[in-house]
């Protein structure tokens, strides 16, 4: 599945890197997330055009001592969790326009 999982950042979030960790607030419900170093690297790497699998293999496995299969599985879990909060967009096709609907869902 991950070979065809494209991920991009929602434009409806607030985000800033603080002390090497990304802080992200959901535009949907103002939930605040802090990403650890690995998740931050994934966040910074996703662009809607490169598959998650490729990002993990090129960026994560190159920098961290981790089995590719394990890293991909963990990355999928992470992006799916963030997608549920509208922070990331995921698709089986490349995401050319990553501008997600902005504003808050009540």
């Amino acid at each position, binding site marked *: 599945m991950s070979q065809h999982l494209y991920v991009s950042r929602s434009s409806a979030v607030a985000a800033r890197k*603080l002390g090497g960790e990304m802080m992200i607030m959901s535009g949907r419900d103002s939930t*605040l997330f802090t990403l650890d170093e690995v998740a931050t690297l994934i966040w910074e790497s996703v662009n809607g055009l490169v598959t998650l699998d490729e990002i993990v293999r090129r960026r994560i496995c190159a920098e961290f001592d981790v089995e590719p299969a394990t890293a991909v599985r963990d990355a999928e879990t992470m992006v799916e969790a963030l997608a549920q909060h509208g922070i990331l967009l995921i698709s089986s096709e490349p995401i050319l326009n990553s501008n997600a609907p902005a504003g808050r869902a009540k």
Partner: protein
Amino acid sequence: MQEMASKALKLGAPLNVHLDVTYRCNERCVHCYLDHEDHGEMTTREIKDLLDQLASAGVFFLTLSGGEILLRKDFFEILAYARELTFCVKLKTNAIMIRRREAQRIRAFGVESIQVSIYSHRPEVHDAITKVKGSLERSLNAIRFLNSYGLKVIIANVLMVQNRQDYPGVRALAAEIGVECTLDPTITPKMDGDRSVLNLNVDRLALEQVFRDQSLVGNVAEFCATSQKPDDDAMESLPCSAGHTSCYISPYGDVYPCVQFPLPSGNIRSQKFIDIWRNSTQLTEVRSIRLGDLPSCSKCVHGSTCTRCPGLAYMEGNMRGPSVQDCEKSFARTGIPSENLLSRKASRSSLVHIEQLGVNGAELGPVVGQRAC
């Protein structure tokens, strides 16, 4: 959020910045602390450059305020740029220029919240405070537009002599519309030092009423409970976030610890923001102050629970001193006068005693009565 603030404090990062994009305003609120003349606002380019600097410095929460933000013709360009830089943007506005189209545009940019000032549910009271006829109706229409687009709206109600009985009505109005409501019992002196607006502060009786309103404070007994004098841990505590994880920037690029703490700490037209934030002698001094460094407040029974604002204290003449307005609040909340109020009363008694040596004491009676705390 607390974890985020602690991390920012540890890293010395400016988590929150309040940026006034203009002091111009289309209302003339009786209690306003600003000079509404334009003395050379930052240009669009300057503000965009500033926003770049703030993002690089680690600012997460950006409050855009004024004056009235929508009086800047480039406001939506500024807002768009701020959101491109992924700030968590909060807006403060009187909203009287917001109609359906503006509400749609604000929604499109995904701001976190919009705070709108509403002083009363009665037009004759609200409009008399803003000095703009029809302003309540226009602001409420805007709130309804914004709310209908799913935006988080917060009604901000400032308590003053003119509207002291109206906050329940404002809260009922907010509930009816379906938005949040806050109540602030503090009138701020003007930034030029003029303290005449403080006459609009409500009296202790009104404060007592507010502090014993369960719908406002929750558990009244807990909220109004007296406290012990500060312990050693409390002595090391910080007065507030001003200058530590937050600061204020005026439309002219002046950097202050807080909008309510007008201690000039640098100007972004002559220095980079990060240099001011890290190296300003004024901010460094503010950061050095702990509760234990406050001569009066460290001895006060309210020391560890008081809402003391160092900015208000600064405007009274000493950033390490007490703030009388907060002393009054602690007194109204608990029924126990602060160290500062006690010493002021004592010094006034001494003054009366000295004057009695040369003046007929009978004539002084009513004056003492008027001046007593």
